[in-house]
């Protein structure tokens, strides 16, 4: 990848190596997100079985976690910020959980 940066963007070799070292994690998350999107799209386009929504939901959940943890770097933040991020999603879980339990089991 460093060689690609040198050839394509005319970066000095040392600069390209430093930049790629910093971009390795975002690049990995990018590839994972595209793969998961591919799974979701494939499932949605073909609809092979009636329970495919579970795979789609799982794939979406994984994508959300990747964006939160890697792209938004929540794990690198101080504990108070991590707490707020977790509490925010906890409130959403309560909202979805309590409402859907009613509709799914009435």
């Amino acid at each position: 990848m460093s060689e690609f940066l040198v050839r394509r963007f005319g970066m000095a070799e040392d600069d390209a190596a430093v930049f790629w070292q910093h971009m390795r994690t975002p690049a990995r998350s990018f590839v994972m997100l595209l793969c998961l999107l591919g799974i979701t799209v494939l499932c949605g386009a073909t609809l092979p079985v009636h329970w495919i929504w579970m795979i789609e939901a799982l794939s979406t959940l994984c994508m959300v976690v990747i964006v939160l943890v890697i792209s938004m770097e929540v794990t690198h933040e101080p504990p108070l910020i991590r707490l707020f991020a977790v509490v925010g999603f906890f409130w959403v879980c309560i909202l979805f959980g309590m409402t859907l339990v009613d509709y799914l089991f009435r």
Partner: protein
Amino acid sequence: MSAVGVSPVGVELREQFNNTAQQRHAATMGMFIWLITELLLFAGLFLVALILRITHPASVTAAAKHFKFWIGATNTAILICSSLTMSGAIELSRLGWQRGMVRFMLATASLGSLFIVLKGYEYVVDWQEHMVPFFLDRSYALAGDSASELFVNLYFATTGLHGLHLITGVSILLVLTRQAAAPGYLQRHQNRIEIYGLYWHFIDLIWIIVFPILYVLNR
């Protein structure tokens, strides 16, 4: 892009903070709190979409068949690419490589604009296919099916609200890019790039949820 053009990186300390670390954490914390309120706003819309799916599956499926699945998928891929370029801009700002950072920010704004253009095209096709039930003087393709009408209105409310966030995001990004191109910017305001990056990733995160809930689950 070369290490020769490296700028010193830092944050200008404001008088109400003890040190720059405290200032950085306060800014990040403020952004997270705001993003949580935004998440709760969108969560209500997602929940209504799921409830409609559970209570009126046939109507929702009929309406969702008119949505442009492949444009939605392409737009998701575009936003994922824009998240990568935004991450690149953040990393370059940390390294102090100002010129490269500005280029990555412009690439992010371009990808965001491409998303908006594709979304606009989708709306035009919806108009041509008579799938805009909130225009009372225009006939609706699934007339008589009030649940599908409700779902299509919800689709426009959700994607419209997301689009509004994206238009705002691109506008702010262009202003920020102009400011960030000024000499000495990274020495005084490097954390602004990181704070803005959180907003951009959040826009991506919301669309990652919108796409399956509106386009995929209801096919």
